[in-house]
């Protein structure tokens, strides 16, 4: 039977691990099970600083070059709203690049601002191409865009061939979401792309983080509680 201070040390270390486990079960585990669409690229993302919309008259077409279309892209999303009370028309989204061309119709009929998505066939390998949106209906539509200079350094839309001070919002998502754990290898590969360390270091750190850190802190506390009071530090 361990003595009382030792029991107290064990109890404290166990409490520490229990707090971590409780936080994991109640706060993190539900998020691990999330099945939101995984991003496959955000050439012109939502939520940039300067909103700058593009008005598409019937038959008009807006295009933006230098758009990266990833091989994992399975869905394309833009944002539209009607300029008045009449519902938004149908749009035609064309994605093209070397050896790749995809045309999909985006549903209309919205009377308020909304995001419109359509499934696309992904290219065989990622490429830099052009995205165009054509108004196929008989009423105008506003395509939401951005005038953020950080966007415009990369791409800038043309409207019927005329240069605009804006780019329309365009994002890609993977066609299926597999949950956070299943997506983890992809996330690590993506993170490693921006680091001098290879993916191996990320994989090495993962168990150290998830298991090693809580255990190490518990061990530190355990060791501390089992240590006798320290002598006064020397008078240096």
């Amino acid at each position, binding site marked *: 039977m361990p003595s009382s201070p030792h029991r107290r040390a064990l109890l404290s270390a166990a409490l520490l691990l229990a*707090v971590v486990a409780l936080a994991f079960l109640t*706060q993190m585990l539900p998020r691990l099970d999330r099945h939101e669409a995984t991003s496959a690229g955000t050439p012109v993302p939502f*939520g940039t600083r300067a909103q700058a919309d593009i008005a598409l008259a019937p038959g008009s077409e807006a295009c933006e070059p230098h758009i990266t279309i990833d*091989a994992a892209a399975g869905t394309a999303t833009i944002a539209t709203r009607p300029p008045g009370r009449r519902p938004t028309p149908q749009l035609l989204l064309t994605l093209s690049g070397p050896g790749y061309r995809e045309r999909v119709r985006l549903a209309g009929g919205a009377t308020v601002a909304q995001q419109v998505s359509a499934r696309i066939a992904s290219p065989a390998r990622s490429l830099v191409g052009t995205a165009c949106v054509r108004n196929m209906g008989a009423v105008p539509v506003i395509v939401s865009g951005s005038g953020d200079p950080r966007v415009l350094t990369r791409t800038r839309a043309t409207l019927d061939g005329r240069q605009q001070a804006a780019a329309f919002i365009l994002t890609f998502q993977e066609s299926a979401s597999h949950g956070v754990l299943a997506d983890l290898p992809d996330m690590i590969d993506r993170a490693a792309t921006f680091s001098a360390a290879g993916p191996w270091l990320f994989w090495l750190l993962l168990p150290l983080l998830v298991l090693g*850190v809580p255990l190490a802190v518990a061990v530190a*506390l355990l060791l501390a509680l089992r240590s006798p009071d320290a002598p006064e530090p020397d008078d240096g």
Partner: protein
Amino acid sequence: MTAAQRPEPATRSGRASVSASRWTRRLRATPRPLAVLLATAAVLSLAWALVLPPFQGPDESEHFAYVQHLAETGRAPSPTTFGGAGSHSTEQTRAMDTLGLRLLMGTATARPSWSEADQAPWRAFERSLPDAARKDGNGLNPIGKNPPLYYAYEAVAYRISPSSTLWGRLLATRIASILLFLTTVALTWAAASELTRRVWARTLATGLVALQPQLVSLSAIVNADNLLVTVWTAFLALSIRTLKRGPNARRVVGLCALTAASALTHGRGIAILPALAIVLAAACWHHRPALRSTLRWLGAGLALIGVSLLAFRLFTAGNGSTLYGGQTNYIHHGGFKPKELASLVWQFYLPPLPSMQPPIGPAYGYRQMYIETFFGAFGWLEVRYPQRVYAAIQLDAACGLVALYTAVVVRRRELWAQRHVAVGVLAITLSLIALLHLVSYLALLGSPDPLIVGRYLLPLVGVFALATTFVATSLPRKLGPLFAALLLGSAVALQLGGLGMVLLRFYA
């Protein structure tokens, strides 16, 4: 005497061996809980450095640009004049623009361009870069007004980086920041060791620093605040030692050297000057050292500070900035009203009194600074815990403050005997907070930005840890360790949660 008979080489090797064995002894003498916490802190900080994409910490793009320019040219970038490729080198600008890293800053829905279609041209571009493309970030870089000490330290890491790619040099400079963080963790142990002999209490104080989410995420990026935190924690530890044991030449000159280091690290570092004056006054008042010796130590220390400031003045004269322009330029906005400042500070923490006007500036106060951005707002502050987590931290902080007050009352006799130490620690705390409020008020006179975030409080992370440990050691003997376990467990959960959120934000 022949060469073989000369004793010098033998003496030199003997000296080296003595020195090596002294280091080995010191390493072996490292308390095991501290060693474990240092290893934990290293793993966590490295994980943050890998998970945060390039330039995705507060102002990291500008701090790195400063480091690069200093390492490549020996000069700081200008904070006032455009030149060369601008605030960043051609290399850094191209990376930020073509890989979506500039757009990523603060835009929560954006993702970096990880696709091979973007990466391959970037790698080809990087291979073809002339050296000049790394040297042309001449300015205008607003961070160029900062003193050079941190950037000089980082420039060494930049130069000795084994990888010559941009990501390699960035990782090397981030690792240099991690080393500063590990020093901070060790210094917290030293500070706690001056105040308590209980090893679990030292472990709690050190663990709170090693696991502080905002500090660990900051330690993984290039930002001068990292050195400021280390210097202030060293100053705290040495102040407590001086106050407890009395001033001597090493301690007084050491405190002055740390003051100089603080002033040479960041404009906010000058807040240490009143703290130094009060700590030295309290130490001399309590220990009554011989006047002559004291004046001699003080003279040496003040000369050190004077020479440092003079060197900084000469340095700033070269790049067109002014001494502590970031802190003092706001004074020229005019309109300073002490009553308005008092009202602003009051309403920062408390509801307004009936006689008070609404404060100038945005709705920003205690919750935003002491809770949200002190405990964890990552990236460019756009990655945040759920609001319920901040609410829980705020509740805990309120309970902690009540507990601290109670502990002070209960242990008032013990504290009264050590009042000179308490005065010193309080002076360190209030010096920084007062400067932050003053600069924030002056900034608000000329712009809507309050220029105050929780990250600026991190130099006081050691004080935060010691105050929490004081509460823990004031609890009944059986409860203290359990309280420590609760706090450390929560800190681990916040760490891992924060890392997970950052991974999802940038790569999912």
